[in-house]
């Protein structure tokens, strides 16, 4: 019998094939069986851990590429984050602009300050509104808190604003309480302080009074706050007055551009009205 079997095994590959295939088919049939699946499960566990190791080595080998990818992702996320933060900041600044319910901003153009050149004597602001949004030279620029300046140069999409804190800027102002009038000027130095010139010492001006723009300014609508008197020193004919400006130029981000004033053509007084030989003490004021 043994000889017969060995003969069969030695000479009949088909029988062996049948045997192997039979075992294989049996395994397929009982593959879900507990014992087989347990054995298979333990080997799968080993295989999985080996695979995990291989993958982790592969990860180490690709670390540089992965780092570069993460760096790019980081940059992208950072730029998104910065963009979102800026949008949030802009939105807050815009809503702050309209927060003052006593100020009617209809008809005004809202513009963002996109650049500013501040120095000890000459300051210029750049806003993101130009001819395309109806901005013209000599328009008044303000915030609900007070006067910012005037438009001096306009391009298609931008405009340059000469702020109150510019040595060439002058505007006539009036006290809200005593109606004393003078000319606001800035002589350089601290950006929150300006001075009022040509205020006669007979004026009943007091500290703490609010100064507003007058109606006879060629560019600024009347009644725009300019600042508050902080110091009064009498001189020979006029007071030397310091006022704290209403607008904080260091935090300026959004401004309103006032519609152009209708009667821009200020009537020019004939020379012969002025008394001969007496120099005019009043400088030409805008």
């Amino acid at each position, binding site marked *: 019998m043994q000889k017969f079997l060995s003969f069969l095994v*030695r000479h009949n590959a088909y029988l062996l094939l049948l045997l192997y295939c039979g075992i294989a088919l049996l395994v397929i049939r009982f593959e879900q069986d507990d014992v087989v699946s347990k054995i298979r499960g333990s080997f799968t566990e080993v295989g999985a851990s080996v695979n995990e190791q291989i993958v982790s080595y592969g990860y180490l080998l690709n670390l540089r590429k992965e780092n570069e990818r993460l760096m790019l992702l980081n940059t992208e996320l950072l730029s998104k984050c910065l963009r979102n933060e800026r949008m949030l900041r802009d939105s807050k600044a815009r809503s702050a602009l309209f927060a003052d319910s006593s100020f009617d901003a209809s008809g005004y153009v809202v513009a963002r300050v996109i650049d500013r050149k501040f120095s000890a004597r000459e300051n210029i602001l750049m806003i993101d509104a130009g001819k395309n949004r109806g901005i013209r030279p000599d328009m008044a620029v303000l915030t609900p808190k007070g006067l910012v300046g005037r438009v001096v140069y306009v391009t298609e999409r931008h405009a340059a604003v000469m702020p109150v804190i510019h040595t060439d800027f002058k505007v006539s102002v009036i006290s809200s309480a005593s109606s004393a009038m003078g000319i606001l000027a800035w002589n350089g130095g601290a950006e929150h302080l300006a001075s009022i010139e040509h205020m006669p010492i007979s004026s009943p001006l007091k500290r703490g009074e609010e100064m507003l723009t007058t109606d006879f300014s060629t560019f600024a609508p009347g009644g725009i706050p300019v600042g508050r008197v902080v110091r009064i020193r009498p001189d020979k004919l006029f007071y030397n007055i310091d006022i704290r400006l209403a607008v904080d130029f260091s935090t300026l981000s959004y401004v309103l551009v006032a519609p152009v004033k209708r009667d821009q053509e200020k009537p020019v007084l004939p020379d012969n009205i002025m008394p001969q030989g007496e120099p005019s003490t009043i400088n030409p004021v805008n």
Partner: protein
Amino acid sequence: MRQSLLPLVIVLLVVSVLQIFGMSRLSLFGVSPDMVTVMLSLMSVYIGQRTGMAFGFAAGLIAGLFSGNLGVNLLFRTIEGFTAGYFHVPEESHATKSQKSRMLYLAIVMASFAGNLVFNLIENPLGQELLVRIFANGALACVLNLLLGVIVNRLYLRKTLSE
């Protein structure tokens, strides 16, 4: 005989492990070159059909235990060994090196196709059409394995086996 088979068993074990954890990652359209098929073909051609089959069964056992598809692996590896055995070159044969190589290549192609056929008739891991699985994947497997066989034969086997 047992002494000469032992190194082959070790080689089979190493090749199976390499196949499971290494070569199977080099996949082209879902088909990867199979070192085990090449080795089984080699054994069947140079040692004999029954040895090829036995080694196929063992290789299927190893691969099945690790991959979790025991029955199918046993079956198709056995079939591969059996198919390659038809191209067996007896030891006493006076075949030239190129004739032996040709037989080896034929064995690899046929074993690959047969193994692929059996596997794809039972399993469909990529959810492909049956004809695609059998013919397209089968042809690709044949080409990849043949390529592997040619490389192995050129680099190492041709010289040692002819000796």
